[in-house]
């Protein structure tokens, strides 16, 4: 991976009236990197993305895109950005071709390159067959693709996609992910989502934001390596033993019945617990038929980082009672 920095975000802060949306957000994006922007609803993902694209202005801090400051040289900086907002910005009464022609011109593509740019972006997004259809008659998945086509039409160095897969069916999600993976090969991509598996399958780096603060900024490899064993497993036993006897095994924190034959086991140590359970199952004839590690490390990290505060809040409320 080339280490050239394409976007540098420094100490961004922004509030809506009294409410702080983001505070002190800083990160860099390198060329060819796919950055997953994770966070619960209302954490400040969209705000951050809109500030990077110049749709909103930051109250403090700066955004530098490919060497151009978004406030000082907005026109030059925006040339390098393709943005897909949460709602794809489409004119329903235009056809796909008309719309893409218009957006290409908006992005400053010269007349000679126009046809090539439009057809390339249509091809990449699988829109060849719907070029002359009205956007309002397209399905949601196709509309989303038109939105993405609009964002990549000028082959920007950075593509910013705000929840590109929300509201799509599984097949469409897979297609759009495929497309994003392809785009990630020669563009930098920032994509926001609250679907963890998406980050897993696509991203090189994860950024978790919660209540306006960045709480994690790590490459996915680092994150995976930091804990290879799961915290809990789902286990299926034909002759489950008493829960108490399971709890006696050292290292098991809690056991919960999901149904008659399936249990969820939480560990408090991570060393070789699965091994111990399998050995036990054989020696005591529990009839093990299913063993499913639960909770990827990303999910744990996400839960730990973003749910701490709300837990505390709940506890406070309980104490008040």
């Amino acid at each position, binding site marked *: 991976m080339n280490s050239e920095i394409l976007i540098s975000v420094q100490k961004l802060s922004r509030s809506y009236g009294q409410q702080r949306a983001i505070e002190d957000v800083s990160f860099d994006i390198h060329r060819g990197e796919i950055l997953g922007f994770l966070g619960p609803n209302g954490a400040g993902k969209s705000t951050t993305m809109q500030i990077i694209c110049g*749709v909103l202005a930051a109250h403090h801090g700066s955004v530098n895109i490919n060497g151009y400051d978004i406030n000082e040289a907005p026109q030059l900086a925006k040339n390098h950005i393709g943005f897909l907002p949460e709602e794809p910005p489409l*004119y329903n009464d235009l056809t796909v071709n008309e719309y893409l022609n218009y957006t290409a011109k908006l992005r400053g593509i010269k007349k000679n390159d126009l046809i090539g740019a439009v057809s390339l972006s249509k091809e990449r997004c699988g829109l060849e067959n719907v070029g002359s259809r009205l956007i309002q008659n397209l399905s949601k998945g196709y509309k989303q693709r038109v939105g993405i086509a609009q964002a990549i039409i000028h082959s920007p160095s950075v593509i910013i996609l705000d929840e590109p897969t929300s509201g799509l069916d599984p097949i469409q999600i897979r297609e759009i992910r495929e497309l994003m993976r392809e785009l990630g090969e020669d563009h930098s991509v920032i994509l926001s989502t609250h679907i963890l598996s998406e980050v897993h399958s696509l991203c090189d780096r994860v950024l978790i934001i919660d209540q306006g603060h960045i709480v994690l900024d790590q490459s996915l490899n680092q994150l995976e390596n930091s804990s290879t064993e799961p915290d809990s497993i789902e286990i299926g036993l034909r002759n489950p033993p008493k829960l108490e006897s399971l709890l006696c095994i050292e290292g098991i924190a809690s056991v919960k019945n999901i149904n008659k034959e399936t249990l969820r086991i939480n560990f408090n140590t991570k060393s070789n617990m699965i091994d111990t359970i399998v050995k036990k199952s054989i020696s005591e004839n529990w009839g093990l038929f299913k063993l499913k590690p639960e909770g990827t490390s990303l999910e744990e990290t996400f839960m730990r980082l973003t749910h701490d505060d709300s837990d505390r809040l709940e506890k406070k409320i309980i104490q008040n009672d």
Partner: protein
Amino acid sequence: MINNISLIAINELRRLFKSPFAWIILATTQFLMAIFFYLLLSQYMGASSVTSGLTDIVVSGMYQIYGVIMLLISPLLTMRLITEERRLGTIKLLVSSPITITELVLGKYFGIMIFYCLILLMINLMPVSLMFGTQLDLGQIASGLIGLLLLMSTFAAIGLFISSLTSSPAIASISTFGVLFLLWIINFAGINASESMAEVFAYMSLLKHYTNLLTGVFNSVDVLFYIIVSFFFIILSIWRLDAERIYG
């Protein structure tokens, strides 16, 4: 700069004509004006003694009525200029593109002005048809046309600004109509006021300056009045959209 403005303007026009809206408006104004054209013409033909000329009665009379019709129709045309971009979310597309807010606002303004010119062109076919049979006072017509264009420009600029304030087309249209109507009749506010105040109110009226131009009195003050008002509201729209990035 010019490229981007014309791009926005052309897209505005294209989207206007994609819906039946633009066609209906063209048809309605044409139909209404044809009725008035006929009425005015028969009034002139039937007059027992000639007090004023054909141009005065028919052409200026038509322009006078056309101003009122546009007062009613213009808010419907300008209401969607910015509100719709907001509703569709396409404002984000425009703002994240390498065009400036000034280009965006000017593009919208010129887009709607081109449409107004188109209506004007259609309407003027009727008086022009008189030229086959008689002589018209072309100077007075030109003065009236300039007046109309300036009036339209003011309507467009005020509508554009109000459209930039809200995301609801209905609110934009009703407020625009309210403001235009107020500015139209504000000279009545001076009826009971002192003479100097009455003059101020009369001066602010959109109608008064228009009437001057219609009668063929080409006064640069009247022209400047409309240009300044248009300019003022266009700049306000630019400021408003710019401020939205910071406070919105």
